[in-house]
């Protein structure tokens, strides 16, 4: 360049510089970010990086007690699957069980012991240490014990050694007030079994081997007793055998998941199911298949349950009743179960007696495919004799109001959420001087606590479980920690033991950890079962590997129903709150698959699991019959206010084809005002507006005994739905075939891929 003058030169230099800078930055911007490799200082022997390790344990998400195997990588839980060796779920698991991981890794878990610093319910807490908090509680308990004041322990329904520990702990405190509280506990079923069979326990309903299931409102596939086990049975009974396909009949006012799966869904007037059952019993006797010695007594007792009168009282056609009865009798074997709504009417016990009676009359007691009785749990505390019914809870509230309760310890149960406002439970808590919560989440009840001793997730703690209902033979399962604790929390058992230690109960509870306690207790099993294991430690190791222990012992006993029971067998008309003019609709609150009794609401996966019947995610809704909606001039998504004598709610309408016109249904589980970011302030809680009506002689809350009125608010709030059109429009997406005939049509492997084994 001869003629480059100074300015030109400077320009060039500038351009070059700018270019170079740009290029440099460009190269810098596409560089890979720095990543670290952090090895363990001392490698744990049980796992090595990059290789998955499986631990067998017990699911803690619902009382069914399924066995789980948890897959861990690099010391973190990755996936929960069913434990194939566990007889309850045989390797399968429900959605809620799968979501257990999110209760472990939940962002809203309590990370350490806390003390109430502000007003009750203000959720103002300050972090503290275990020493301090435990000392506080122990001191308070000691004072109460010595001062002869009342100490209450309100726990979720725990079983096995934890139950035993609680017993001994309260015993040591000289308190009788140990209560288990589960919203879903079938009190009426226990009471009914007590009355008819003289057993205050749940029998095993053998759905697997039945050929004809008559379910009175029991949603056995989604949340009744042991859904996964029932589902297994359902599948097997349907298509798993060479016998003819099992037939399923569902009798309920609102179609449940089980109703959808059933071959026949029969709506019966709410609370009249028992009458229907007696009507069937009448037909069975008339059929003459029953040849018991007490035939005449039965006949006399059931004389005024003729098909026509029953039809008139239940709204089920007489010919249907006759047909059901004959089908049920012919079936080899048939099985009748009752639960859900049926368990929650004022006449629940009568009804369930009537339902069990059907099993008795067709003689399937103790037979496969029928009702099989369980022996008592092998170790640990007796199960479910501590369950507190609604009356007991009301008494607790009453005591509290009178200031007769000094300390209340709450363990992982949330009555403030699941009890109706009318019970005044929340207000009552306010007048208890000291409330201790062992919950690992800030749920509604925990917000009322003075001291929070957060417990481990069930995936971090030791425990054992004897599934209820049993399977007709003794089963015991071990739950072990699968990950090291995330936070500064402790296992419930260990907390109790610590307190016991501080309160000088070492003699009754000599163990220094839950694990030791378990080992001790399981020695009994080792001794009684004389397994092939050479010594206890080998046995223990085997149990930890398999996660479950069982024994092939079956009870052989024949049931004879007492004459007095026979004579006054009857089903009273159900009692409802609110008169039918002002409150024309029956409220039918039901547990949804995902939320269970509300414990699923803080798990994002459960919030995002579309409700199978309506495909709704996040939030509440109210289901009603198309005819009803038409009459009230309501459309899908219209916001209505549902009012009972005890309060009112607002929820969007969802038109639901399979519900009786006079019934409206609402799912339970949403409407938390605490319980973490995913649950809080979302939807409404129908339980809050229920009337405090209890079932006679079981004392449980009759959740279906409330009448409500509907008024349109004029606003719209369509719920979030993942599904669109709900009709097939003749597109044969779901295809049907008749039961008997072997359908022709094509077989799917008539495509371009012939089935050939590749020679290898």
């Amino acid at each position, binding site marked *: 360049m001869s003629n480059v003058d100074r300015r030109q030169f400077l320009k060039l230099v500038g351009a070059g510089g700018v270019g170079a800078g740009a290029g440099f930055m460009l190269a810098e911007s596409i560089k890979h970010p720095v990543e670290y*490799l952090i090895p363990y200082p001392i490698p744990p022997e049980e796992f090595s990086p990059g*290789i998955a390790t499986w631990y067998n344990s017990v699911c803690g998400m619902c009382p069914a007690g399924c066995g789980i195997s948890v897959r861990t990588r690099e010391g973190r839980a990755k996936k929960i699957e069913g434990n194939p060796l566990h007889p309850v779920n045989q390797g399968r698991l429900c959605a809620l069980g799968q979501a257990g991981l999110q209760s472990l890794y939940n962002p809203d878990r309590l990370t350490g012991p806390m003390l109430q610093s502000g007003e009750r319910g203000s959720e103002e807490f300050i972090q503290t240490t275990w020493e301090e908090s435990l000392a506080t509680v122990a001191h308070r308990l000691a004072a109460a014990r010595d001062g002869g004041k009342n100490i209450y322990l309100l726990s979720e329904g725990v079983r096995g050694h934890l139950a035993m520990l609680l017993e001994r702990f309260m015993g040591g405190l000289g308190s009788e007030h140990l209560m288990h509280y589960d919203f879903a506990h079938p009190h009426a079923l226990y009471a009914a079994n007590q009355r008819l069979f003289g057993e205050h326990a749940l029998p095993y309903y053998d759905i697997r081997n039945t050929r004809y299931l008559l379910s009175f409102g029991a949603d056995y596939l989604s949340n009744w007793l042991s859904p996964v086990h029932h589902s297994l049975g359902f599948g097997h009974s349907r298509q798993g055998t060479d016998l003819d396909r099992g037939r399923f009949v569902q009798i309920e006012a609102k179609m449940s998941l089980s109703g959808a799966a059933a071959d026949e869904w029969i709506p019966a007037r709410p609370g009249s199911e028992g009458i229907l059952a007696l009507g069937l019993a009448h037909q069975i006797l008339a059929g003459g298949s029953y040849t018991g010695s007490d035939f005449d007594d039965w006949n006399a007792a059931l004389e005024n349950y003729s098909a026509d009168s029953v039809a008139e009282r239940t709204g089920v056609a007489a010919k249907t009743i006759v047909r059901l009865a004959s089908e049920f009798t012919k079936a080899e074997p048939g099985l009748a179960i009752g639960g859900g709504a049926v368990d929650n009417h004022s006449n629940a016990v009568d009804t369930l007696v009537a339902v069990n009676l059907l099993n008795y009359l067709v003689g399937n007691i103790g037979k496969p495919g029928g009702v099989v009785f369980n022996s008592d749990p092998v170790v640990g505390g007796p199960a479910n004799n501590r369950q507190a019914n609604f009356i007991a809870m009301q008494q607790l509230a009453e005591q509290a109001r009178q200031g007769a309760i000094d300390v209340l310890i709450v363990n992982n149960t949330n009555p403030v959420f699941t009890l109706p406002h009318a019970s005044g439970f929340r207000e009552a808590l306010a007048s208890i001087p000291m409330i201790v919560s062992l919950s690992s989440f800030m749920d509604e009840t925990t917000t009322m606590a003075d001291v929070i001793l957060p417990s481990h997730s069930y995936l971090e703690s030791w425990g054992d479980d004897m599934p209820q209902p049993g399977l007709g033979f003794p089963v015991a399962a071990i739950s072990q920690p699968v990950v090291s604790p995330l936070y500064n929390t402790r296992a419930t058992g260990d907390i109790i033991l610590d307190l016991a230690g501080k309160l000088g109960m070492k003699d009754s509870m000599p163990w220094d950890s839950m694990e030791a306690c378990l080992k001790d207790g399981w020695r009994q099993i080792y001794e009684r079962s004389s397994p092939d294991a050479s010594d206890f430690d080998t046995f223990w190791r085997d149990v930890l590997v398999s996660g479950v222990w069982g024994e092939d012992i079956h009870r052989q006993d024949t049931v004879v129903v007492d004459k007095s029971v026979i004579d006054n067998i009857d089903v009273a008309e159900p009692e409802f709150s609110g008169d039918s003019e002002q409150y024309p609709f029956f409220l039918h609150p039901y547990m949804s698959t995902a939320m269970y009794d509300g414990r699923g609401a803080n798990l994002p996966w459960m919030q995002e699991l579309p409700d199978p019947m309506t495909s709704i995610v996040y939030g509440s809704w109210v289901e009603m019959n198309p005819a009803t909606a038409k009459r009230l001039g309501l459309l899908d998504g219209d916001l209505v206010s549902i009012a009972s004598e005890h309060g009112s709610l607002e929820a969007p309408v969802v038109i639901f084809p399979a519900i009786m016109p006079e019934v409206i249904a609402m799912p339970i589980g949403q409407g938390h005002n605490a319980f973490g970011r995913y649950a809080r302030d979302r939807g409404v809680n129908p339980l809050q507006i229920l009337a405090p009506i209890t079932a006679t002689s079981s004392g449980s809350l009759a959740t279906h005994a409330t009448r409500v009125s509907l008024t349109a608010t004029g606003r719209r709030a369509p719920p979030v739905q993942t599904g669109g059109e709900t009709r097939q429009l003749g597109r044969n997406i779901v295809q049907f075939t008749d039961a008997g005939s072997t359908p022709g049509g094509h077989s799917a492997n008539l495509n371009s891929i012939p089935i050939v084994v590749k020679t290898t």
Partner: protein
Amino acid sequence: MSVSIIHTLRVLRPAAMIALVALIGLIVGFYANATFFPGTSPEQPINFSHRIHAGENQIPCMYCHVQARRSISAGVPSINKCMGCHLEVATESPQIRLLASYWETKEPIPWIKVHDLPDFVHFTHKRHIQADIECQTCHGPVETMDVVSREAPVKMGLCLDCHRKNEVEHGTDCWTCHK
């Protein structure tokens, strides 16, 4: 007025020059960065020398990277593996002192990854070692390095070349390596 294009070109030359120089600058800058600051041999918390261990003392790779032959990840040795020798060997050298300090506090050493694959790549050391692939094929002559640096460009091309050369079964199917 001239119709010829030459005159115009002459007029435009200065601008063209500037553009040209800027372009050259861009390229130079880019490669300058890539050559002088490649970031392939990061500063490690302890300057452990593979040359001494693997090179001079002939310690086999799998002695420390035990996992490699049975897991997808080769893993780095834990401190107590190091201390296994260094309780006796060369205890006085400052670097070993540093190591020992980690050992006392039971703190993990934050090694920096040199060979790092994206999240969507599924690579298992196990298979490749069972197939008798030399560690050096991908990691370069580590036994000669005082500070480990990424010699081979661990990119998709490298994998595919090797898979093609050795005729790996389905070696070029995406789902063999991608997840």
